């Protein structure tokens, strides 16, 4: 019986141990399960929060886009409008989304700008971010100028699937620009006309002189030949005179052509002394008519300057004319215009136009370069303003001075060519 009892006990112990193990295992499993469930719940909550945030973000983005005052739209590669905000609807003249969404954007692009627009789209789908302008005819038929900032939109793999465009109406700005451009053209035309008018009188006189001389010499020859009392040798001198006068007329015409020709700025290496002499020659008549003399003080051997000689000649002519007119107007007893060139330092050449006129009133000296500022009864007030911009476009500066004892002085500088080259070389060596 004892053995039986012993084995029963052992069996009980083993059973008890097994039960305990199962129990422990069950507890552990339960605990693990609970833990896993908790983790899952946590993850779910986390996911929920992320979704929440995403939704928030989307709402916020949508709200921003919806309330964005400028047109925001998505376009497919073929130009189909995928999405557009209310401002965009208003801009293209659509009442509802379906008026434009799903349709091609080209329906609101002016026909002559469609190719241009297509090309810009191609560039964006090739990965570029660009800004472009185009003319639009809205769904309501209004013609407007638009400016679009376009960027490519990429998916997670980096493939471009849409164009994001922000477009604004720039009609007013365009119109303003157009007005300003017209205004500028008009100003230039007026300035040119008034200069042309002044020149025309001079040209007429300059041409009339040699033509009159030619006619007189020729008729004198004819009369003698018809009279039959002339030796051929006697006609040599007048015939030579005729040739010389014809050349003189040709020279005048060359100047006119140079002035009138529609031309781009032509920069060449210019001998400034020759330009100054040319200007003095061009204004000779006006000087004579106003009893003024021009004195030249040109330092020889000036370095050449990089300039458009005709433009600089016009600037100098303009300064001479201003001086002569001011002196005539003021009835100055001595009427002299001093033209000089010098080289204040190695790098620049200075041109000075001074006169013996009344000078410029101290309070006006800062205004003489203003557009439409003039002291002349018939003046347009463009001469000095244009002159200054010409000099500035040459990289120089034009300044006005007035001495206490009278006399106005205008001086401007041009860069000598030697310096430009040196600077370039320096810059070059610095970079390499």
């Amino acid at each position, binding site marked *: 019986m004892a053995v039986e009892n012993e084995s029963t006990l052992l069996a009980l112990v083993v059973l008890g141990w097994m039960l305990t193990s199962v129990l422990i295992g069950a507890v552990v499993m339960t605990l693990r399960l609970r833990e896993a469930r908790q983790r899952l719940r946590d993850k779910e909550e986390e996911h929920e929060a992320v979704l929440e945030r995403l939704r928030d973000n989307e709402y916020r983005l949508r709200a921003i886009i919806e309330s964005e005052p400028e047109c925001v739209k998505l376009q497919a590669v073929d130009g189909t409008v995928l999405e557009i905000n209310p401002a965009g609807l208003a801009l293209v003249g659509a009442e509802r989304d379906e008026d434009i969404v799903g349709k091609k954007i080209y329906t609101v692009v002016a026909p002559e700008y469609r190719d241009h627009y297509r090309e810009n789209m191609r560039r964006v789908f090739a990965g570029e971010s660009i800004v472009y302008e185009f003319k639009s005819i809205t769904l309501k038929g209004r013609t407007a100028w638009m400016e679009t900032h376009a960027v490519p939109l990429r998916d997670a793999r980096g493939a471009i699937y849409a164009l994001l465009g922000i477009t604004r109406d720039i009609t007013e700005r365009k119109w303003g620009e157009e007005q300003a451009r017209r205004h500028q053209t008009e100003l230039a035309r007026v300035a040119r006309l008034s200069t042309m008018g002044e020149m025309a*009188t001079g040209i*007429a*006189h300059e041409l*009339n*002189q*040699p*033509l*009159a*001389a*030619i*006619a*007189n*010499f020729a*008729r*004198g020859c004819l*009369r*003698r030949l018809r*009279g039959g009392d002339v030796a051929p040798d006697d006609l040599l001198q*007048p015939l030579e*005179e005729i040739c*010389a*006068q014809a050349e*003189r007329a040709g020279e005048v015409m060359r100047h006119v052509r140079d002035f009138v020709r529609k031309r781009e700025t032509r920069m060449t290496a210019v001998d400034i002394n020759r330009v100054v002499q040319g200007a003095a020659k061009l204004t000779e008549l006006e*000087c*004579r*008519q106003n*009893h003024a003399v021009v004195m030249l003080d040109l330092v020889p051997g000036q370095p050449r300057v990089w300039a458009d000689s005709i433009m600089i000649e016009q600037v100098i002519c303009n300064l001479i004319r201003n001086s002569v007119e001011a002196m005539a107007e003021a009835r100055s007893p001595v009427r002299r215009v001093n033209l000089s060139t010098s080289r204040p330092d190695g790098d620049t050449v200075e041109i000075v136009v001074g006169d013996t006129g009344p000078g410029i009133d101290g309070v006006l000296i800062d205004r003489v370069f203003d557009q439409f500022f003039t002291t002349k009864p018939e003046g347009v007030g463009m001469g000095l303003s244009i002159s200054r911009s010409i000099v500035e476009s040459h990289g120089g500066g034009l300044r006005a001075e007035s001495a206490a004892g009278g006399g106005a002085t205008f001086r401007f500088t041009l860069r000598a060519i030697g310096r430009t080259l040196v600077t370039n070389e320096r810059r070059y060596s610095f970079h390499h």
Partner: protein
Amino acid sequence: MSDATVFIIDDDQAVARSLRWLIETVRLKVETFASAQAFLDQYDATKPGCLVLDVRMPGMSGLELQERLTARGGYHPPIIFITGHGDVQMAVRAVQAGAFDFVEKPFNDQDLLDRIQRAIAHDAGQRGKEELRSQLKALFASLTPREREVLDLVVAGMSNKAIANTLGLSAKTVEVHRAKVMEKLHARSLSDLVKLAMQNQPG
């Protein structure tokens, strides 16, 4: 022809030389000057002829030269102005100020030469009248004060008797003075006398 001279004043030497070459074809003497001042410096009012000058000239203008000549008083030769295109207004002013004529560039040679001939003829006429006037002046100067008185009253249309009463002379004495006046002035009739007296009016 005459000893008339065409005085050309033009700052443009080529134009001045060409005018000389042209004008010399009608056998006129020509002198050229480069400025109004150069002309004034050698100006001799007794030389017959005419002036041809450009309205626009540096220094003294053509108009100023005309003013200067007029201001000198006495007679000056006729002036023909040459004007450039668009200077017609200036030419009109010149003519108003006493210029003889003007031609506008470009001019016809015959036209200019005709005008020059007319100006020279005018000058000769003026000089002739001037001559007559000075001769007449000399004749009148030879009259005694009394003869002058008698002449004035005769020209005023008074009879010998009325003159005698006015001057307190006898009719016979008036007759003698009157005969003397006729003789001194080389007048053959009363109407001659009146004409001469009119011509002697200044102006």
